[in-house]
Structure formats: structure tokens, C-alpha cells
């Protein structure tokens, strides 16, 4: 790139700092893909349950290993993030919340509520065990 002329150059995509709303936009898609895989995991667990106690006995220890908990925690946060950000999308669909300040505010709100719902779900689950 010729920068010697001194005129301003446009930012390159790799050094461009994405605004929060853009980060949430791509995260919505990434969590969507994670949840599609998570949905397939749910079917795996349900099939094991339907097949009887012996087959579920093979699945349960996998779910309750440290790795299983890590995956479930990731899915829980992905779920609530996609949930909250999806509600943002539904508001945009009816033409609400497009102002930059509002979009920024709802972006932060989506992250905070997703985190609260994730913690709440795991607190409920920890209370049962």
C-alpha cells in the first residue's frame, strides 16, 4: 500500500476495531451454530433415555465429567446470549431500537442478562444436586 502521499487510507479489516454491535452480530451467528450442535447433543441424551437405564448409564458420566460440565456451561451461555440477542432482533424487525445509543445500550443489556440467566440456571442446578 502506498502511504507516502500522506492522504488518509481506509482501515484494513484486520486492524479495524469492531464496534460492540458488530461483535454481537457475529457472536449471534457463532452461538447459533453452537446451539445447533447442542441440539444434536440433546437428541443423543434423549435417545439414550428412551433406550433404557443401561444406555443412559453410559451417557450420564460423560455429562457429569468436568468436560461435560464445561460443554454444558458453554451451551447454556450460548443459549441465553442467542435468546437475548434474538429478542433484540425481533425489536429491530418491528423497527424499534435502531438508534446507535439504543443499539449500544441493548447490546450491553443482552450480555448482562445472558450472564445473569446463565448463573441463575446453574445456581438452580447446583441446588438440586
Amino acid at each position: 500500500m502506498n502511504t507516502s502521499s500522506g492522504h488518509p487510507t481506509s482501515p484494513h479489516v484486520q486492524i479495524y476495531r469492531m464496534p460492540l454491535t458488530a461483535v454481537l452480530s457475529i457472536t449471534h451467528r457463532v452461538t447459533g451454530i453452537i446451539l445447533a450442535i447442542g441440539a444434536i447433543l440433546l437428541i443423543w441424551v434423549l435417545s439414550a433415555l428412551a433406550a433404557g437405564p443401561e444406555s443412559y448409564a453410559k451417557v450420564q458420566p460423560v455429562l457429569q465429567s468436568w468436560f461435560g460440565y464445561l460443554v454444558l456451561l458453554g451451551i447454556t451461555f450460548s443459549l441465553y446470549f442467542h435468546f437475548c440477542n434474538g429478542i433484540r432482533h425481533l425489536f429491530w424487525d418491528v423497527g424499534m431500537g435502531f438508534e446507535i445509543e439504543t443499539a449500544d445500550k441493548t447490546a450491553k443489556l443482552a450480555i448482562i442478562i445472558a450472564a445473569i440467566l446463565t448463573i441463575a440456571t446453574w445456581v438452580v442446578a447446583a441446588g438440586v444436586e
Partner: protein
Amino acid sequence: MSDFRTPLSRVKGLGSAKEGTSHFWHQRLTAIALIPLVIWFAFGLASLPTDYASLTAYIQQPVIGVGLILLIAMLFYHAQLGVQMVLEDYVSSHAKRTLMIIASGFLFLICALVGIVAVIKILVGA
């Protein structure tokens, strides 16, 4: 300038893709259906012990079993629509993209059917 579209095509409003806004609309409908279903299911599941007996007893309640079937149907339809959109945006080869959309569609359809049959099996205690 003359308009080559027939009055019928304009009334139907389905455009050249022949399906109009149905992808967009179904994505929103399934999203709205999933709002209550997801919260109900996530907290319902979290408040249960994870042993075989508790989980099957939970699903065997008719309201829970039917709700779970609804959730599976909405979830996989929503997943199929979303994954299709991602593939359309990021896979540039037409052949690859079409094959991946078909393959993921079949995968989600099979998963949904297997899941629904599993719930029915647990529901009737077979």
C-alpha cells in the same frame, strides 16, 4: 418503462425465488415460539436431578412430554433456517453450498424425528 411482471405474480409477491419472505417469516415465528419454550425447558431441566428415574418421570408428564416435542420441532426448524442462512452467506461455491444446505437439512430433520420418537417412547413407557 413497461413492466413485464404479470398482475398475478405481483399479487402473490413471491419473487423469483418462488417462496417470497417465507424463510424470514418462519425464522421469526419459530424464534417467538422458542422464547417461552427455551426458558421453561432450561429451568425445568436445571431443577431436576440427573438420574434416569427422575428424568423419565419428568418427561412422562403429558404436559412436559408434549412441550418437549413442540420444543424439538421449533428448535430444529429454527436451526435449519439459521444454518441455511449462514451457508448461503459464507460458502461461495454454488455446488458445495447447495449440497451443504441439503445435507444439513436432512441431518436436522432426522435429529428432530429421532428426538420426537424418543420422547413418545418415554411418554408411553415403552
